[in-house]
């Protein structure tokens, strides 16, 4: 019985199609995109890096996860697309509801999951390929493009969505490493958006960037959320969280301490640890 339901879950997650996402996107503002219940992470049997995190993320919103270094915010983010499972001996407990199924099980198709839950990393990590190929790689590996023209169109759409198209349209065949750091990061966003995700995870996407590039990434994150995607951004920068996010969750020592609308979190925090963090007593 238990195994049956698990495999059903896997099947239903595997069947999520892109067309469905695209169709529901405009009407999906505010709809729950992903919901976690009591999520915990063990890096080995003894040490629990994260415990009992229950959060809900909505489409069309930017959610910020803040907290001091080592508080588990990145670990939590990496649960949402099961990136943690790439680490040997790492175990996720609790449940993560996504499209009506719990993705914390062995039968989940990680590859389809990561297609619709995109991720952008701390350091810009474009592949050692041309700008075009960086975006086109995953599209073609997932067999999403029906023709060369379709592929071209998808690449252009993704680059436009990441607000990069105007800067690179004339040198799509140049190496991605010819771009500046901020452009590289937006290229990484573009190649994720090319897969039509409905959740975008950003793991301190601006920590390697200068203020102007940071601003560009933040604006991009905002416009992506406005298109109906749930953007979850990890940041150690409280100003960034205040600027860009609708909701903010504060993590401390492997726990989610407080969550709420960003404005309320920063103007009227209730937990003492959060008050201390915001007032700069530790960081």
């Amino acid at each position: 019985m238990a195994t049956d339901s698990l495999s059903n879950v896997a099947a239903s997650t595997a069947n999520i199609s892109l067309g469905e996402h695209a169709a529901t996107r405009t009407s999906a503002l505010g709809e729950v995109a992903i919901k976690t219940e009591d999520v915990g992470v063990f890096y080995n049997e003894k040490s629990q890096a994260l415990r009992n995190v229950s959060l809900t993320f909505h489409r069309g919103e930017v959610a910020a996860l803040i907290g001091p270094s080592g508080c588990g915010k990145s670990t939590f983010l990496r649960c949402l697309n099961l990136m943690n499972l790439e680490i040997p001996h790492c175990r996720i407990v609790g449940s993560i509801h996504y499209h009506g199924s719990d993705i914390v099980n062995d039968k989940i198709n990680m590859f389809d999951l990561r297609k619709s839950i995109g991720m952008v990393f701390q350091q810009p990590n474009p592949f050692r390929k041309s700008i075009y190929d960086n975006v086109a790689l995953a599209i073609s590996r997932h067999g999403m493009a029906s023709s060369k023209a379709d592929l071209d169109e998808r690449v252009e759409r993704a680059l436009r969505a990441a607000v990069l198209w105007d800067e690179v349209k004339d040198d799509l065949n140049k190496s991605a490493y010819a771009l500046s750091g901020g452009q590289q990061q937006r290229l990484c966003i573009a190649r994720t958006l090319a897969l039509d995700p409905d959740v975008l995870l950003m793991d301190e996407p601006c920590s390697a960037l200068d203020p102007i590039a940071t601003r560009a990434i933040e604006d991009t994150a905002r416009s992506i959320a406005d298109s109906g995607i749930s953007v979850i951004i990890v940041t150690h920068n409280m100003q960034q969280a205040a600027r860009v996010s609708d909701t903010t969750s504060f993590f401390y020592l492997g726990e989610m301490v407080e969550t709420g609308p960003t404005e309320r979190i920063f103007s009227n925090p209730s937990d003492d640890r959060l008050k201390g963090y915001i007032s700069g007593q530790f960081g």
Partner: protein
Amino acid sequence: MPDIQGQAGASSIIDGAPAAASSLPEKNGSSPHPGSPKGKDARVPKKLMPKKRVERIGGTVCGICAGIATLLVVTLIFMVAEHGLATFVVDGISPIAFLTGTTWNPHSNGADGAPLMGALPMIVGSFGVTLLSCLFVLPFAVGAAIFTVEIAPTFGRKVLQPVIELLVGIPSVVFGLLGLTIIVPLVRGAFGGTGYGLLAGSVVLAVMVLPTVTSLSIDAIASVPNAYREGSYGLGCSRWQTIWHVVLKSALPGILTAVILGMTRAFGEALAVQMVVGNAASIPTSLITPAATLTSVLTMGMGNEAMGTVYNDALWSLALILLVMSLVFILIVHLIGRKGAKVNG
């Protein structure tokens, strides 16, 4: 009694009662173990040489070593070039005839009166075994490297890589002997003929260069930043897609370097090849007809000819070709490295 004292002393930290009971004898016992060291302390500084002088001496010694090493390389190239070019300058053999002639028989003269010195068969033989051996070794080396880095790092690094690297230590004559007793009969059985030839030679060479190419490929693949793999996994690419489209693509310059360094080794290998290649200085018509390489002709001919004879000069010319080719290989490696550096930004 002294035993008990010792025990009591040791347990005194944990348990108070015995320590209290033996507090007196312990005090007495502790006197032969004073904390301060006796005798001369080596760490007390003696009078030091002035730092400026140390700097100067160090710089001079390193400079001399570097100078000698450079001089060695330059004189070596100069000497090979001097002897090798004597064939053309002193003995008046046309370089074009030397490089394109197909008959190698320096003891007899051709129709035009010049000795028959066509090196083309050996050049073809050398390039033949080199390219073929690299063709054979490439899938195994890259496969083993992928396995070691991406699939089973613990087993690969602890077992596979050391075992493959053991091959480096086996002398080439042993490889030749193994080739002679295993490969040559196998080739003879499978394809007919004598069994000696380019095929046997390249199989032996492939085994010989396997550790070099594998080790360097492992380094190349391991040096691909993990961020690339994460990026690819994050896009929902499978492990194999990641390896094939992202990791190998990024490691390509390094793998090419590995192959070319393997080619350098294969090109220059003499003994093992000579034992299985058949040593017939004519252009091979197939992979299983006996052939010769630059190195095999050199090793067989060098001892027989007196210095300064035309034959001897011709052998030096073959050595010069070998040297130049090795330099070309190294140059290619450098060019790849520079291009890689450019891509890295």
